[in-house]
């Protein structure tokens, strides 16, 4: 499959983000013992949204510096493969993997077209990876292909309400600035960076998931905790906004066996 044009833009923006932030943030993330979710670092032990990963084969689509994959490996996954399309991010991930000796497999590829065999994983995972940077019509189909029957798909993305309230620049407002009608691909530009991400509304994304054989197991809307403070790097909704409205959401699905 030829590389869609947004892939190069996203690679460039993540190369820059790696130089500015994610490379230096990687060691602390890898070193962390606890699995946490999203910008507010909500602990998995409170959310309980992941299946038991002990002995499971896991693939992370859009792994970035692969800290989440590292956490899953430490939580008992048998095999963890991280897929990402930005070499700089994978370089950081490889350096960390060597340092921490966790034995992740790291592959440079677009999650819309993964060079791995069918039915080779028990869990497909994405935290702000393919879940927002890839076309859902393509990457969810790949996720279904990579999973064994009854395998699970867990991913996090920004909430639809946050997207609807986003101005051209800066954090989410309390106003509906973007119509939901036609919402799917969002082209953006911020300073030197440009790219595209994908955000079909809840019903459209659910329809794509059903078409690809997934059954919805759980869906969590995440709010900022009372003591949350604004993130140092990511242009997030303010902690105050995210206490009132969910800025992030986690989907958990199971591939139907038939």
């Amino acid at each position, binding site marked *: 499959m030829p590389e869609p044009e947004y892939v190069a833009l996203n690679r460039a923006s993540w190369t820059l983000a790696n130089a500015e932030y994610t490379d230096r943030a990687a060691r602390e993330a890898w070193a962390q013992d606890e699995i946490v979710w999203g910008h507010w670092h909500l602990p998995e032990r409170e959310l309980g949204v992941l299946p038991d990963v002990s002995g499971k084969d896991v693939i992370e689509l859009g792994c970035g510096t692969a800290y989440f994959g590292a956490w899953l490996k430490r939580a008992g996954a048998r095999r963890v493969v991280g897929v990402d399309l930005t070499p700089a991010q994978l370089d950081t991930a490889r350096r960390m993997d060597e340092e921490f000796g966790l034995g992740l497999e790291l592959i440079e590829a677009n999650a819309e077209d993964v060079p791995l065999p069918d039915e080779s994983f028990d869990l497909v995972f994405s935290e702000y990876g393919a879940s927002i940077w890839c076309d859902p019509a393509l990457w969810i189909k790949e996720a279904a292909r990579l999973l064994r029957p009854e395998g699970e798909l867990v991913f996090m993305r920004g909430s639809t*309400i946050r997207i*609807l*309230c986003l101005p051209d620049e800066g954090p989410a407002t*309390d*106003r*509906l600035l973007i*119509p*939901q*009608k036609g919402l799917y691909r969002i082209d953006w530009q911020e300073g030197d960076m440009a790219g595209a991400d994908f955000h079909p*509304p*809840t*019903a459209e994304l*659910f*329809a794509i998931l*059903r078409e690809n054989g997934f*059954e*919805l*197991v*759980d*869906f*969590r*809307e995440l*709010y900022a905790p009372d003591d949350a403070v604004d993130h140092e790097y990511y242009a997030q909704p303010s902690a105050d906004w995210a*206490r*009132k*409205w*969910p800025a992030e*959401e986690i989907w958990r699905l199971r591939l139907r066996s038939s």
Partner: protein
Amino acid sequence: MADPTVEAWTRANAEYTDARAEEAWAKEEIDWGIWHVPESELRALPDVAGKDVVELGCGTAYFGAWLKKAGAARVVGVDPTLAQLETARRCNEQFGLGLELVEAYAEDVPLPDASFDLAVSEYGASIWADPYKWISEAARLLRPGGELVFLRNSTLVILCSPDEDVPATETLQRAQFEMHRFEWPDEGVEYHLSHGDWIRLLRANGFEILDLIEIQAPEDALTHKRYDYVSADWARKWPAEEIWVARKEA
């Protein structure tokens, strides 16, 4: 009558729903919500031929009438507002459709377990009954493999609705966090949950979620003359209504 919701619907029946019940019952095509989007476009319902159906919060029971005409074996309409059931009974006699009409709250239905194949609610229990009570009743009333289909307002339109009785705005008027029970002026008590809470509630009651349809007002839609909580223009840009389709696990 102490119940503010029953009071509000008794008033609404005298002002509006009684007078338009015959017209609604007479319609041949099933449609959804205030924009009358046809079922033939949305395809939210399973085939009802030969099925036993309960409508939770039936009002004047026009939706149940459509399902009976579409081939349902048995249609039971449940509503707590006597005035609306009287209108429904008058129409039922006039149209000879043989609906059964029961005065009860959808949170506590005096009918046996596992006696229906389909539970529906269109602006009924779906917004005027507490989901933490009526969803478990729907699960109890359904046979294994039975389906639950309901239409409610979108979470977004509720978030954008001011406390006063004016149409939805383009500004978030209230927090979504822990949203549940709403008292509007002169409108009774409504219940609105976020998507996450709906999904978890349905799953906890043994439902598989088959579909979620966010309804868009058609291009030629005009703002509804009575149900003017949202303008047609707003509802073309953002969904003001949504339909959930779920199946009770066998």
